[in-house]
């Protein structure tokens, strides 16, 4: 590989030019604008400029009742909407000490993990299109159609789910969902092997990703990066184990961690997480108890004054909702700590001195969803 610019001889401003990436992309990133200052081939500074899809969810939280905010949660990160649903209902349940029946908790876990697989399949497809391989998109979306049909049969929506309710779920699952989920798990494992044969083990892909975009654990800690970015740098931090919620303590799964810190490590973390999700779904389907899916919830929702938070391991990292209540039926403040925002913030430092295609590969490997950043 060629050498990065000589840091002993800093580039004079007139030797650099500014290349604007976005906000419209041919690549599937979303409306993110990155102002790259380039010294020839090398990027000296990549400054992300946000706000093109700022929809003021947090402000909407201050104008809607607790129940009316639920559809918003599905739209913050539409690819892993159920996790975000879970965080918000979790924070209200924690504040009001609502008991969620075990059946509802298990169904929440099953549908959330299905959603995680769906989100990772989209990430995988988009990342590979960035790198030039168009075919895996179609294979991944074939699997995703089965997933989306399963979830549509239960929730009624294909993407922006609004399925969880305070105290449980909107409606119960039926036998066709359970049979469908089992069938999906059975057919997905050979598909993951197919993806490994076609893409992961491919020498061209390995050359594109190994050693590209190294992010150290220290940089992750500094910027608060979580999720596959952090686990691809060797830190085994997963909210499902660090701050256990729902029925995850009863389920056996591993936290895939790769120490290399390069794009390949983040890629492998994503693929391994899909396998672990399949494992969780299979266990949860076996352990699924009978019973109601809705607990006892007060008629009028009014949280006691104070500060409450709830964190989940969304597909992209740690998503936390923090609400401040002042004893009214609408929140005083809803703070959404989204994983993509923190993951993007290390982009500027991580991309210094890299050539342009590598910088784009790094951006893809961070698994960003721009509406998640801008909210």
């Amino acid at each position, binding site marked *: 590989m060629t050498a990065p610019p000589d840091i002993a001889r800093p580039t004079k401003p007139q030797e650099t030019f500014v290349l604007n990436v976005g906000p419209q992309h041919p690549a599937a990133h979303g409306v993110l604008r990155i102002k790259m200052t380039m010294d020839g081939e090398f990027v000296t500074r990549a400054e992300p400029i946000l706000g093109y899809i700022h929809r003021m969810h947090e402000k909407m939280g201050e104008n809607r009742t607790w129940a009316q905010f639920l559809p918003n949660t599905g739209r913050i990160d539409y690819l892993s909407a159920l996790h975000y649903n879970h965080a918000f209902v979790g924070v209200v349940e924690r504040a009001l000490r609502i008991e969620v029946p075990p059946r509802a908790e298990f169904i929440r876990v099953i549908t959330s993990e299905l959603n995680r697989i769906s989100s990772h399949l989209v990430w995988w497809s988009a990342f590979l299109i960035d790198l*030039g391989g168009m*075919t895996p998109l*179609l294979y991944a979306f074939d699997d995703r159609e089965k997933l989306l049909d399963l979830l549509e049969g239960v929730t009624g929506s294909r993407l922006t789910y609004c399925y969880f309710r305070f105290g449980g779920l909107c409606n119960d699952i039926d036998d066709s969902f359970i049979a469908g989920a089992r069938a999906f798990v059975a057919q997905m494992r050979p598909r993951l092997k197919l993806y490994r044969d*076609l893409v992961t083990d491919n020498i061209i892909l390995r050359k594109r990703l190994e050693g590209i975009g190294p992010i150290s654990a220290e940089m992750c800690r500094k910027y608060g990066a979580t999720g596959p970015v952090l686990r691809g740098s060797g830190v085994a931090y997963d909210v499902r184990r660090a701050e256990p919620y729902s029925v995850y303590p009863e389920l056996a799964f591993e936290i895939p961690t790769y120490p290399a810190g390069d794009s390949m490590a983040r890629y492998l973390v994503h693929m391994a997480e899909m396998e672990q999700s399949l494992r969780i779904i299979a266990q949860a389907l076996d352990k699924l108890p009978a019973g109601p899916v809705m607990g006892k919830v007060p008629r009028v929702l009014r949280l006691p004054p104070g500060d409450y938070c709830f964190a989940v391991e969304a597909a992209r990292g740690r998503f936390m909702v923090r609400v401040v209540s002042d004893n009214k039926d609408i929140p005083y403040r809803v703070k959404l700590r989204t994983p993509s925002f923190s993951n993007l913030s290390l982009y500027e430092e991580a991309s210094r001195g890299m050539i342009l295609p590598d910088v784009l590969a790094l951006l893809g490997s961070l698994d960003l969803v721009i509406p998640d950043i801008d909210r």
Partner: protein
Amino acid sequence: MSILTTEPVRLLLSLVCIMAFVGLNAAYLVLAERKGAGRFQRRPGPNEAGYGGWLQPVADVAKLLSKQLIVPPGTDSLLFRLAPLMVLSPAMMCLAVVPFSETLVARNINVGLLMVFSFGSIGVMAIMLSGWASRNKFAIISAARVVSQNVAYEIPMLLVVITLLMMTGTMDLNQIVRQQAGGFWHWNFFKVGANPLMPVTFVIFFICMLAETNRAPFDMAEAESELVAGAFTEYAGMGFGVFFMAEYANIVLGCSLATVLFFGGWQSPFGLWPGLLWFLLKLYALIFTVIWVRWTFPRTQFYGLLNLSWKILIPISLFTLLLSSAMLKIFHS
């Protein structure tokens, strides 16, 4: 009948046929690629224009012809207009020496192979001209990359062809095909008696052919247009269409060459009824493989591409050359 067999008329007819062949192939290979891509991706491909999509190339050509041929101000107007011509003509010229069957060859010269490679290099120059004449800094960077890619991959290709030449002893393409008569075990691909690494030489030739024609996984020049404009940005309408046609014409040329050199050209696999049909079958099987490779792999990095050529393909092809010459010396002197 007699006037048709006189030399000038025969030559004219065969050249017209070659141009028609290239034109039809360029148009319908685009469709074949899109349909093939669809099938690899388990979707139908274009199927709306005409029954099953067979009129799609007509629609594409009509669209391209209806666009205004913009020549941007500040470009070198002669070179800008010349580049599309120069990129398509070498492919057509080289096909004049390729033997489609024992008698169907436009002009069978005894240095046919040499002619193909000399004219093939003109295509590279045309891309450089198009990038340079565009007066667009991204176009010229892209064009420079294409040139360095093509130069890097010409070397292993030529080394491999020299290896083959040592075995065949002649540059006359029709003669090379005649040497592969008999069953398929006589084809050059299987002649491990002369050089045990013969299949490897074919693989190297194939990879170099993909890189020369800027096909995936080596299509940095075209695909750079995700972000930075490719070498052909400033071309609109049919100008761009001609570059596209030239790419497919080059693929046809490269695959015909591979068929002739390695797979016995118009010879049949079992020695029965040799002729045009076998040539076309093998040609399209190779073109199918080119399409197959494109839709399977992601793109290489530019530095990975150059590393592959200089650090891997050239040492291997040099080694096969040495091996071939050593075996010739030892076993056939």
